[in-house]
């Protein structure tokens, strides 16, 4: 199949999840790319992006972790494919250099305000003046030569032109016209009978001004891919609602309620599976549903696929049995009943 297309090359940042609990996402993505003649060059010696924890607790560290990966990608010299939504979010925000700073309405008013406020140093009454002072000194966490605060606002708009690489999440990557066309040609069997809802989650859509998604409350990229695969994709209102994955370990009760809402909504929309492109969402939806089976019977469980797994299935890549085995809500009964 390789010979049918010209070569395309992308740098590839898997992230810790794809190297661990979401191995089936990694494997299926690599298989699909190989079948479409897209060569993936894994970043040599990549490091963790720091996930939510880093920007929750230490934005300096978050910035450094992401920056190192971006530097590695620049060395490889190709555009970067980042399948994990959380990693994508961190890298994209850092690349745009707009971490925390809204360029829109708030910015100008803010500059005025900042002019009148003490920055850093010791501030009586403020509980953590030390932290603030340190932040003030470490100043600009942006790359060398990015200059002072005022300049930062001025250069924010043209920074993306200066950065030499672009970053793609899986949905955007496969809806790129070149690649979507290849996918269309490569599909061997249509996945008719599968009635998925596309679940985008939070982090590939937000913050809106960084991601530049045209329709952040109702994205369409994954729906388009699913249509190409021949599924009858359902629309639903929960495409970008949070599944609470970052609270999955610390606050399981909250996550359980969010997942229940999502699964019920998917069933109400008439779907027989949920498709996602985020390892956090997949793991969270899959695991919490496995609990339903144990605790109650009122919610019907729905298999949760990675979009790349369905692509591989449609293209006819072998070896998907071993991926299905690693799902907690086993998708095999559904696939068997549809003759897939």
């Amino acid at each position, binding site marked *: 199949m390789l010979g049918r297309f010209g070569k395309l090359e992308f740098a590839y940042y898997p992230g810790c999840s794809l190297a661990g609990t979401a191995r089936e996402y990694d494997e299926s993505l690599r298989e699909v790319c190989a079948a479409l003649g897209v060569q993936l060059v894994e970043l040599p*010696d990549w490091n963790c992006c720091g996930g939510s924890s880093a920007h929750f607790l230490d*934005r300096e560290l978050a910035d450094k972790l992401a920056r190192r990966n971006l530097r590695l990608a620049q060395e490889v010299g190709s555009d970067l494919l980042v399948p994990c939504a959380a990693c994508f979010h961190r890298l994209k925000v850092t690349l745009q250099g707009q971490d925390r700073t809204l360029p829109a309405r708030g910015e100008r*008013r803010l500059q005025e305000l900042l002019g009148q406020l003490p920055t850093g140093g010791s501030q009586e009454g403020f509980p953590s003046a030390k932290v603030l002072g340190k932040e003030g000194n470490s100043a600009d966490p942006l790359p060398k030569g990015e200059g002072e605060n005022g300049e930062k606002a001025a250069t924010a708009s043209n920074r993306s032109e200066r950065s030499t690489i672009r970053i793609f999440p899986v949905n955007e990557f496969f809806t790129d016209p070149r690649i979507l066309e290849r996918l269309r040609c490569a599909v061997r069997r249509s996945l008719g009978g599968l009635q998925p809802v596309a679940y985008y989650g939070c982090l590939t859509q937000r913050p809106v001004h960084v991601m530049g998604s045209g329709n952040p409350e109702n994205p369409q990229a994954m729906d388009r891919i699913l249509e190409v695969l021949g599924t009858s994709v359902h629309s639903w209102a929960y495409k970008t609602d*949070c599944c609470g994955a970052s609270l999955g370990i610390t606050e399981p009760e909250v996550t359980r309620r969010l997942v229940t809402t999502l699964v019920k909504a998917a069933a109400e929309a008439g779907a027989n599976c949920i498709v996602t492109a985020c390892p956090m969402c997949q793991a969270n939806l899959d695991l919490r549903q496995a609990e339903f089976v144990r605790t109650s019977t009122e919610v019907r469980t729905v298999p949760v696929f990675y979009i790349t797994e369905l692509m591989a299935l449609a293209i006819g890549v072998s070896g998907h049995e071993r991926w299905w*085995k690693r799902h907690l809500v086993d998708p095999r009964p559904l696939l068997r009943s549809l003759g897939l």
Partner: protein
Amino acid sequence: MSDEGTTEGRTTLAGGIAAFCGVNVFLCYQCGRCSAGCPAALAMDVLPHQVIHLVKLGCVEELLRSHSIWMCAGCQTCTARCPNGIDVAGVMDALRQVLPLDRFSPAGRRIAAFHRMFLSQVVRRGRVYELGLVARYQLVRRPSWAEMFVGVQMIRKRKFRWLPRRISLAKAGERFPEKRSGKPSPDCWKSPLVRLVDKSEQGP
């Protein structure tokens, strides 16, 4: 209202947030759209728009007493929907970093501890070791049966990798002084890898 809700406190907390993350909380007119869309609001004692209000008023004690800041899942729905362009999620991040960690409520400290475990792994190995992270957190706080059930399922389905992985920086890197010296310092995640990454930044 606390003692810190004075004029003096008011300017410093909101000003500190502005200095830290560049968000002007005074643009908020309390429409409550952030709270309406917040997926974690069901678990919050103080809703996101109220958090913003407390920041405006400089009510540090109230913020420390509430666990809302730590219940925030970081999904950014509030930021996306704010009619005045306030980065509400950014304010939550800033509060987590500028308020003193050890003075938060127990729930807040517990969630903070998890994130710290995560980061201490990242700075030690350069990557996250998922099994180690989950096991360590659950051992500390004694999991419920439901959590143990999920854990067993994950192991049965071979979700976890058994062994951790390191990046070359960490392999070549120094040992971590904080590791054996009794109680870990609250900044323990800030040391080794950051230094190493700094070094590589100065390279060619």
